[in-house]
């Protein structure tokens, strides 16, 4: 193996090159504002293009270019075939360049609304946003939408690049009018620090060299500003926070707690607290491959050794003992929805917040926010690329800080439990109630005691199937037999519950989710009371049935699929509902214009076309013993 030897003079020169500060920024703006062209121009002018890349650019410009005989800098950045063919940006592209003063990572983000989630991806790690405006068009709805997302993601620095000045005759008044309009708008978003620069990415004016065509502008060039700008830093030194990513048990005597410091500094001897348990201990050492360290600070990945044998696992957070963050299981948050399937209240998701992963459901959609105007809108569901303020209920308390105080401890994603897609990005605003206030009433009379008195095992028999499939008929027969055997039962039927408890609910998807949630909670209380509960509900969606199942202990929930073909249900049409639905008088009718998702693995699968109602009932009774 060759082990390189460091040298003298050349080494000093290289050392000066190596640890230049870095700035990560995004570019955003409307389609055709010239984002990609501007980045290409920056790379070109910063001399970060290699000869073979320039050669490829010339070839590509002739083939795909939109600039006639000139080089089309946009082609440097649009990397996907589909993007080059359509001449648009679909996904965020990361580009690298450096000057003598700084290294830059640019995230070039898509302008189209349908790719907003990709823009958010780029924005989430950026320190500065470069917002492009076409001088001819001025502030567009897209500009407002992107600015709102930039503000929501907490990017403190904004550059308003008024591009294509060459096409408005380098007109000062035009520039100032756009700038004034933008500042007024940005103020409402809480974007404090805005630098407006008139430029032409195509011609190179004010990109790296001051424009001779705009002598009236005496501010910095774009590159000059990017080199000099100081990223917004917190005024006070924030207290120490380190989420535990990994517990290193290298050998029996070693327990190292690994993580990347989210805020503050840490030194050996410092008193720290472990959350959520709240135990305090002392940092023994900051250890690692390069030996022990005297101090580590925000952004460092470290391994901590603690003085006491405290219980710490992945997802816990080690914090400054005297200034701990909050712990809560009910949160209010702002959400950017990114899934094609709209968000409705009640559905469970995985919530990932730093290294913690819990199950969460949206308990209420407080309001949606018009991304362009900021107006508050009512709504029972949130579609892709929409922003909403919601309340969340978690199955376990999490350690967090408001997003405004910490991106690391306040930003989270929601992951669909079944498709695994990343469905939403969230920013915690505050806790609705603190976990410390939750004390379950310890009861000596419990489920086991109540069930023992009745001499039975409590269960929830969940009958699902199309309208008219025979759910109520079979559930009634089962209940009669159980009663005859001296069991204590209760039947919750779709119709009787809808007349009382759920009479405020309609038949939209959101209402149907809530309908099932309430019924499941009622069934859970009844099982807790020791009863055998029979639930006969269409309950068409798998996710709601899963939600219901998750409320019960293993073995308590028995899913009974009443499998009757749609044609047969429609032929029976006991209540005349199918006929109405076919005539269009009933909306959202399961099987007609709303989906029924059959169970994938029901405990009991009954085919009414094959067996009589009696035989079906007997099978249920046998199955539950």
């Amino acid at each position, binding site marked *: *193996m*060759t*082990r*390189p*030897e*460091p*040298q003298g003079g050349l*080494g000093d020169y*290289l050392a000066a090159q*190596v*640890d*230049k*500060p*870095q700035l990560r920024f995004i570019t955003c703006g409307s389609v055709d504002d010239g984002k990609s062209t501007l980045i290409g121009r920056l790379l070109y002018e910063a001399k970060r293009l*290699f*000869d*073979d*890349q320039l050669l490829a650019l010339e070839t*590509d410009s002739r083939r795909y270019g939109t600039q006639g005989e000139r080089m089309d800098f946009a082609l440097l*950045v649009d*990397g*996907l*075939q*589909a993007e*080059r063919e359509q001449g648009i940006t679909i*996904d965020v*592209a*990361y580009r*690298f360049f450096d000057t003598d003063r700084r*290294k830059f*990572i640019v995230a070039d983000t898509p302008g189209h609304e349908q790719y907003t989630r*990709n823009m*958010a*991806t780029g924005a*989430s*790690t950026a320190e500065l946003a470069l917002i492009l405006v076409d001088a001819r068009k001025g502030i567009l709805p897209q500009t407002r939408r992107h600015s709102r997302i930039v503000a929501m993601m907490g990017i403190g620095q904004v550059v308003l690049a008024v591009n294509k000045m060459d096409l408005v005759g380098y007109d000062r008044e035009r520039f100032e009018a756009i700038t004034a309009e933008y500042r007024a708008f940005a103020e409402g978003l809480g974007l404090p620090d805005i630098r407006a620069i008139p430029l032409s990415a195509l011609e190179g004016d004010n990109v790296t060299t001051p424009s001779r065509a705009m002598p009236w502008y005496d501010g910095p060039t774009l590159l000059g500003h990017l080199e000099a700008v100081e990223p917004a830093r917190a005024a006070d030194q924030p207290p120490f926070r380190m989420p535990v*990513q*990994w517990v*290193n048990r*290298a*050998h029996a005597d070693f327990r190292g707690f*690994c*993580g*990347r410091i989210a805020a503050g500094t840490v030194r050996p001897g410092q008193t720290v607290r472990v959350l959520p348990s709240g135990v305090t201990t002392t940092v023994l050492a900051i250890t*690692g*491959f*390069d030996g022990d360290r005297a101090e580590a600070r925000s*952004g460092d*990945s470290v391994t901590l050794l603690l003085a006491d044998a405290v219980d710490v696992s*992945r997802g816990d957070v080690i914090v400054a003992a005297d200034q701990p963050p909050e712990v809560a299981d009910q949160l209010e948050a702002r959400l950017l929805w990114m899934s094609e399937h709209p968000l409705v209240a009640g559905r469970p998701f*995985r919530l990932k917040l730093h*290294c913690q992963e819990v199950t969460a459901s949206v308990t209420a959609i407080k309001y949606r926010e018009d991304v362009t105007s900021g107006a508050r809108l009512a709504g029972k569901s949130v579609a892709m690329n929409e922003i909403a303020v919601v309340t969340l209920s978690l199955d376990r308390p999490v350690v967090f800080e408001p997003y405004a105080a910490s*991106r690391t401890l306040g*930003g*989270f*994603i929601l992951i669909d439990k079944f498709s*695994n*897609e*990343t469905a939403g*990005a969230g920013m915690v605003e505050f806790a609705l109630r603190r976990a410390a206030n939750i004390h379950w009433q310890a009861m000596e009379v419990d489920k086991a005691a109540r069930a023992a008195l009745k001499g039975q095992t409590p269960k929830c028999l969940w009958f699902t199937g199309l309208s008219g499939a025979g759910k109520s008929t079979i559930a009634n027969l089962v209940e009669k037999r159980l009663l005859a055997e001296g069991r204590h039962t209760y039947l919750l039927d779709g119709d009787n519950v809808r007349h009382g408890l759920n009479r405020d609910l309609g038949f939209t998807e959101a209402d149907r989710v809530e309908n099932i949630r309430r019924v499941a909670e009622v069934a859970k209380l009844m099982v807790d009371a020791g009863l055998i509960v029979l639930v006969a509900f269409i309950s068409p969606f798998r996710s709601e049935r899963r939600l219901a199942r998750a409320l019960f202990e293993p073995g308590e929930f028995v899913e009974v699929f009443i499998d009757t073909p749609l044609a047969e249900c429609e032929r029976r049409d006991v209540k005349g509902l199918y006929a109405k639905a076919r005539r269009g008088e009933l909306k959202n009718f399961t099987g007609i214009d709303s989906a029924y998702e059959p169970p994938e693995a029901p405990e009991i699968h009954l085919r009414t076309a094959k067996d009589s109602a009696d035989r079906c009932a007997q099978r249920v009774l046998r199955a539950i013993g």
Partner: protein
Amino acid sequence: MSLNTLESESIEIFREAVATAARPVMMYSIGKDSSVMLHLARKAFFPAPPPFPLLHVDTTWKFRDMIEHRDRTAAALGLRLIVHVNRDGLERNVNPFTHGSAVHTDVMKTEALKQALDAHRFDLVFGGARRDEEKSRAKERVFSFRQPGHRWDPKRQRPELWALYNTHVKPGESIRVFPLSNWTELDVWQYIRRERIPIVPLYFARERPVVRRDGAWIMVDDDRLPLRPGEIPQMRKVRFRTLGCYPLTGAIESDAETIEEVVAETLNARSSERQGRLIDSDGAGSMERKKQEGYF
């Protein structure tokens, strides 16, 4: 403190991946990026060794120096090394000359990689790719989701916010993780220099037997390289900016014998490192297409 930031970010990625994956593995291609990646993995889990094996997909056309370096590194660090060769391709004698670089790469690299990943049921694979290397790589996530069959769908990438990586996969799906996503070629060289990371000697200039072919210097690494009419091996002082299959990897003429000289040369380079890779120029969008099919 830029290198420190990059180092901390990569370590965070390693730990996050290992904490959430069932069967992780590291693609080890023996080059400078793999060497840096391995060094970062050692730091991430120190004093424990990296809790995953290394996988080398051997096309049987790698430089001899690479194989030597690979075996020595694995032995010195006590790491589990899996070497996979596409036996089927070997039996059919697939090589860069009679089949062309595209078929050779597809059979002996992409197919071979998929065979190895399937055989060991790895659900998370570390790769040393960097976003500054190539345009389609510039678009890739740090945690890049792969459908069954290892396909990459660039139009449906998972959103990736902050450092919150969604590592959930279903059986048959997998994730490729790129800890060096935000590093540049220069960062890699600077880091090798700072950390004194051992690398294959081919990266340093030395007199080597080469022939001029398709505008590149190709090293005659063994007697399997068929010489074309008029080609006579000559000694030239050359080095390599990237390493792959020797018949497909062009050297550059250089006097850079030390790491400092290599870094200085990189600072003033006028061509990108992938210029020496003959397989990248198989057509516009060729890297994106290879990646969709499962190539790293």
